[in-house]
């Protein structure tokens, strides 16, 4: 275990030779953006408005370019990422979310656009000294006191404790002006985080029955209709979610050819599954059900029980109609420990 004085933080970030993406203020929001001197770092912010997903799976990215001439087509692929970079200050839930994205994009056949970015990144995790009221990460096996990252930081007021867990992490930390630190001090911080987490309103939810074995039972529940009734289909939840990965592929005319790009899409939108003969999810009830069935039943059924919710609480903060996944878990869950 190592530590460095709190006033060294921005110097350390500035000294990193590769681009660093960190939570910074952008107007009224806190987003992961390329850090430059003078920006306002917000490592204190739990549940940043946008997530580190932006770096690995950007809201839009070019895939390829076509030149059309008469009946012929010329195709030029977009170059894959080849520059190393660091994402600094990623919470345990958002790191779990990256593992969820890995399950999708690195599954056979590998998405090489994502894979290249993933490979070049080093992640500096950040323990949650002060979990927020909307947090419920431990329900999904996430420990807010111990992010699974290349380097992990623990806040301790006048100093930061830090430890590297991988070769990438050790290489990054090599030049940091750190000194040896007492392991016990970090254990105390972790214990304090655990106590704070346990006092949160959604600390313990009952996820019994959210698995492939109860797929039809959950799908057929009569509760979806009432649960989804207030949903506007705005898609805010999907865009704020660190694991939502549904995408669209679109083309636009650059005036000099056709650019094919990928952009985020949302299962909440009415045209998401629209085909020439209609759609198989005609109302918001089906669309709403799809989103939560995917996160809590379909995804774990395909991925060794791994949920594609990480308990970050952003959907609780962002939904204009106060809908969220906790309400769904409570409504459809089994037993009475949800009260």
């Amino acid at each position, binding site marked *: 275990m190592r530590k460095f004085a709190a006033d060294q933080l921005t110097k350390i970030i500035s000294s990193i030779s590769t681009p660093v993406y960190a939570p910074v203020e952008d107007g009224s929001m806190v987003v992961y953006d390329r850090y430059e001197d003078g920006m306002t770092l917000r490592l204190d912010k739990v549940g940043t408005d946008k997530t580190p997903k932006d770096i690995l799976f950007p809201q839009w990215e070019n*895939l*390829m370019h*076509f030149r*059309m001439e008469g*009946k*012929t*087509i010329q*195709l030029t*692929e977009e170059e894959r990422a080849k520059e190393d970079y660091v994402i600094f200050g990623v919470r345990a839930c958002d790191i779990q979310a990256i593992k969820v994205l890995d399950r*999708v*994009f690195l*599954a056979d*056949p*590998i*998405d*090489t*656009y994502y894979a290249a970015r993933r490979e070049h990144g080093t992640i500096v995790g950040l323990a949650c000294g002060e979990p927020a009221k909307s947090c419920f990460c431990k329900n999904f096996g996430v420990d807010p006191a111990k992010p699974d990252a290349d380097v992990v930081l623990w806040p301790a007021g006048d100093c930061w404790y830090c430890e590297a867990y991988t070769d990438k992490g050790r290489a990054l930390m090599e030049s940091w002006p750190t000194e040896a630190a007492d392991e016990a001090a970090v254990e105390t911080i972790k214990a304090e985080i655990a106590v704070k987490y346990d006092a949160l309103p959604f600390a313990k939810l009952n996820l019994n029955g959210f698995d*492939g074995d109860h*797929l*039809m039972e959950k*799908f*057929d529940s009569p509760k979806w209709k009432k649960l989804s009734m207030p949903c506007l289909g705005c898609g805010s939840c999907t865009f704020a979610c660190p694991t939502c*990965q*549904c*995408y*669209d*592929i679109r*083309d*636009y*005319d650059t005036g000099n050819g*056709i650019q*094919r790009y*990928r952009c985020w*899409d949302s*299962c909440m939108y009415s045209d*998401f*599954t*629209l*085909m*020439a*003969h209609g*759609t*198989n*999810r005609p109302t918001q009830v*089906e669309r709403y059900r*799809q989103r939560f*069935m*995917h996160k809590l*039943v*379909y*995804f774990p*059924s*395909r991925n060794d029980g791994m949920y594609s919710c990480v308990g970050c609480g952003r959907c609780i903060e962002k939904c204009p109609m106060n809908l969220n996944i906790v309400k769904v878990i409570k409504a459809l869950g089994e037993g009475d420990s949800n009260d």
Partner: protein
Amino acid sequence: MTKETLVPVLGIVTDVRVDTPDVKTFRVNAVDGGKCFEHMPGQCAMLSIPGVGEAMFSITSSPTNKEFMEFSIKKCGCLTNWLHQMDVGQMITVRGPYGNAFPVEEDLKGQDLLFIAGGIGLAPLRSVINYVRANRENYGKVRIVYGSRTKEDLVDYPEIVNEWCQEAGIEVFLTIDQAQEGWDGHVGFVPAYVTELGFDPHGRVLVCGPPIMIKFTTQALLEMGFDKTQIYTTMELRMKCGVGKCGRCNIGDQYVCKDGPVFRFDQLGELPAEY
């Protein structure tokens, strides 16, 4: 499979055949000749005209055709309208093959086969039928029930009449929805015709067509004594990636593009009927 996810290869349209008033069959070759890639019957490919759109189509030709791939495409939207205006020589982009296939080398082998198709639903089955014809010794009796709205809507009628109907061991039953001049064959919907023909419940059945036709045909087959494990169909939902990542073609925890499009009816029965 085309080497890179999402990155297509270029293909060239080498023949356009007008099959019906709204179906054309396009022959596609790689730019330097031959096929863009190999496939198995039932698999699909993403075709695109950059700037217009990209969509999933079943590969109509059999893999035993070593020279080219064929796609029978019904005009029903933006991209298909554009495709219907294409001439020979037009380049398109192709990626695939995607999805599973009909188990022609496993469960279907050695079996009597009953093919039931409605309208453009013949497109994916034609690949299997011609594969079976090319490997005739591996399969039992072949019966084909095919129906469409009018006689003009039967896709590639010449191949059906001049080749399939002429071959020993193949029986073809055609029907159209309503009586019309110049048609002395059967008139009526496919499910009713299947009931009327009354097949022995053995062998394997492959069904493809409009959802309503699949539904009633399956009911008819089950009433005849067929088991769900004997019946296969192929599904289609909106797709963007073709590789189980873009998140839109799932039925329950199954992705139609990756785990399908071919499903056995007992497997389909375990999934939500959201299709």
